[in-house]
């Protein structure tokens, strides 16, 4: 069992997915693993929240998907950031920066 079961907020998960796709296109499992990796295992993304998120963001037009070959020659669906997805990531990042700063300050003063 993972040590810390953090329940990711919807928006935060979206942001993490966008972030993990910022460099290259990836399939679902790749994204999950990438998020685990960059959070050093703090966040474990379950398929039950990953796929709804991916499909919703695709409908929003932030991602596009294509079928491709995985590293070990399996068919897998690859997701890629679109222009508007990139803009969304920027907005989310800025927003998150403001929020975390505000929370950090609040916690310091108390």
């Amino acid at each position, binding site marked *: 069992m993972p040590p810390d079961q953090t329940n990711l907020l919807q928006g935060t998960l979206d942001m993490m997915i966008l972030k993990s796709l910022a460099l290259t296109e990836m399939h679902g499992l790749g994204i999950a693993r990438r998020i685990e990796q960059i959070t050093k295992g703090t966040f474990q993304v379950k398929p039950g929240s990953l796929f709804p998120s991916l*499909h919703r963001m695709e409908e929003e037009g932030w991602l596009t998907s294509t079928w491709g070959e995985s590293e070990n020659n399996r068919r897998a669906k690859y997701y890629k950031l679109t222009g508007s997805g990139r803009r969304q990531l920027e907005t989310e990042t800025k927003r998150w920066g403001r929020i975390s700063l505000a929370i950090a300050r609040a916690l310091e003063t108390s």
Partner: protein
Amino acid sequence: MRALPHLTSFLRNLFRRKQADQDLDEEVRSYVALLTEEKIAVGMSREQARRQARIELGGLEQVKEQVRDNRAGAWFDSLLLDVRYALRMLRKAPGFTTVAVLTLALGIGANTAIFTMTNGLMLHTLPVRDPGQIVELLHHYPGEPEPGFNGFSWDAYQTIREGNHVFSDLIVGAVNFFTVSADNLQPQTVFGGAVGGTFFQALGVRAAAGRLIGPEDVYMGDHAPVAVVSWSFWKSRFDFDPRVIGKKIVIDDAPVTIVGVAQRGFYGLSYEAQQDIWWPISLGPSPGWGFGLLARLKPGVSLEQARAEMAVLSQTVVNAPDAGPFVRQMKLRIEPAANGVTTPLSQMLSTPLTVLMATVGLLLLLACANLAGLLLARGASRQHEMAVRACLGAPRARLLRQTLTESLLLSLVGCAVGIFVAYFAAHALIRVFASGRFIVGAPVHFEALTNPDAHVLLFTLAIALLTGLLCGAAPAMSASNTIPASALQQASRIGESKSRRLFGKGLVASQVALSLVLMSSAGLFVEDLRQLRNLNLGFERNKLLLVTLDFAHGGYDAAHFSRLSQELVMRLDAIPGVNSATFSNMSPMEGPAASSFASAEDHPEKQTQVFINYVAPAYFETYGTPFLAGRDFSARDQAGSSVAIINETAARDCFGNENPIGRHITLSHITLTKGERTYEVVGVVRDAKYNDLEQAAPPTIYPDLLQQGYVGSQHSQLAIRTRTDPGGIVGAVRQTEASVLKTVPIVRTITMNEQIDSTIVPQRLIAMLSAAFGALAALLAAIGLYGLLAFTIARRTHEIGVRMALGAAATDVMRIVLRGALWMVCAGLAIGAPLAFWGKRVAASLIPGLPAASPLPIAVAAAIMIAVGLIAAYLPARRAMRVDPMVALRHE
């Protein structure tokens, strides 16, 4: 732009669902495969890896479901599911569905039909600037139909124009028929108006082409030879030809030039009597009452203020030094005209439509209660299903939505069928209206009353949704309140809470109550009609044929007419089946009246208003009105001095107790004209109704038609008393007439009974429809009661079995069921009776002369409801009686 990707994915999800689902399935499977390989790579066995991957995934279907719930249009998916499920449930119960849809279709259809007419007749706002400020001026004589007539003398017009402080404009706009012809246009009758110079400007109507009529076109004693046509006239007769401006046409023999087309959509002053042509009125004193008046209230002036001032002006008009005795009885009125001016049709129908609107509203409420009851009973039998669904994880809101979807679906289907019902009902009703006197030949735009417009469709949709919610609410609440555990345990047996049972009974009782209200008011209206039809009219109404002749273009002089008419009467008398025939200037109940003021020779100062009908010899014999004194006219009278016959009221009013025979009576102000005529009274006849069924016979004088040399009237009435059905001799009468009076066309033939019916269209309409609605109400209540009992007894089979096993006889069981039914009916009657009494009072306040004092209709309606209730209860009761205890108990 953000909406676009949503919309495309919504449409994709909707139409390419299968592919999207396959895609998703493949994607999730590939995820599992990748995960498995990852685990094999770290050293798990293939079997173990696959198992572990599955566990981490947490269920293939669940993941897919979560994705689907997040897709654009997920709500739509579940709605579709609900609808599909509801459709399946309804298809599985065709009997229930048919009854429910028919109930709703009749309820909604009746509402739509009546609303279509109310909308067409009363709710169309005039297409003018600030219609709320527009009022119409009416004059009203005692005893004439409410609210009155729009027509004023030149003097009255002057008084109102000079004396008022409340109108920013006084608009002259008479409505009239014109015969319009042109070079390439057949002569045709067009409804239009002679308007004052400020008509268009004050109403705020602009020209679509050319110019409109202005003050420069109107002068004293004459007017400019110009005319303006409506947009629709321009379209239908001139096909939008721009050369219509400057076109020469002939209106009523006067050549005029069309100078303009009114703005699109301007139809004059009434939606159901649309005007197509306007020309200037000529100002100046005229004998008639040709000035139709509208006014625009000054900003900030209320209707009450205007009425107060009109009361003062009314006095000035009535007390003018040269006002005749007619004018002295007159009252001036102001009515708001934002929705159009008073027309014969609106005058005739506004009260019936108000009454009927209330009636159909109650009917719909009853249909709702009925359907709610049926749905509730069905809901109870589906408790088990609901419990299973709740156990499988359906949230409460979802169950609620499912049940509501079913009732809304029913109401929408009912609405669709109802619109058809309404369309045909409206057409059927129009035929009744169209038979009304003053309506025959009037320019009524009947499509306005039958064709649903956007307002009507919205109204119908709104009541359909409301109905669906209303009758679905209780069943939905009760379905979603199902407690799974107890329902699953008990559903097979009793499983109906006390409160729900009470609610179901309450619904039946309320249906009985509403039926009582509807049936008793129907009884009231039908009784009113029956009394009207059985009134003593003072003449014999059956087997009397009336033939209207048009002498306008016959070219006969008085002597000629007199000779030919006597010849015609003689030849008609010879037709087999004819008892007698006669001529008169008008026939009773026909419509336009003639009246004057009479004074007896010894009392010239005492003026009595009397009504006039010029009649030929044998008039009273033909109509069946007995002589009380004196004699009928004879051929000898034609050479002698003027003679007349009077009725007993006129004799009493003019001569008191003295014998009027041989005395003289002088008429003045004969229908608004000046001059006098003196007659010798030769006979007194019994009173007969003159023009209105509901009013007592007025004082009436009958001068000798032949003696008058009376060809002045355009129309004359031939009355023929037959021994058999008058319809059978129409052909022979036409032939005879054509051979004697070659140039005089027959305008119409009608029986006296039909003519009487044409005067009571509102009463017929209300009686006919309320009787139909009352019967429908009783039927619905019976269905409601039957449904509830049938359902309860099916549930109580076990209990009844026990009772019978313990020794209850079949008749005891029957008694229990019938007693239960009777209780519900009586409770309904107890609730309904005060409502019915109240409804009766409301109806009596709307319709004067209603026999509202009698409690009979309510008693009869209650008796009918009890009988209907017992019949509806008998079938299920018989089924209960036949319960075999052994079978019922083994049923467990």
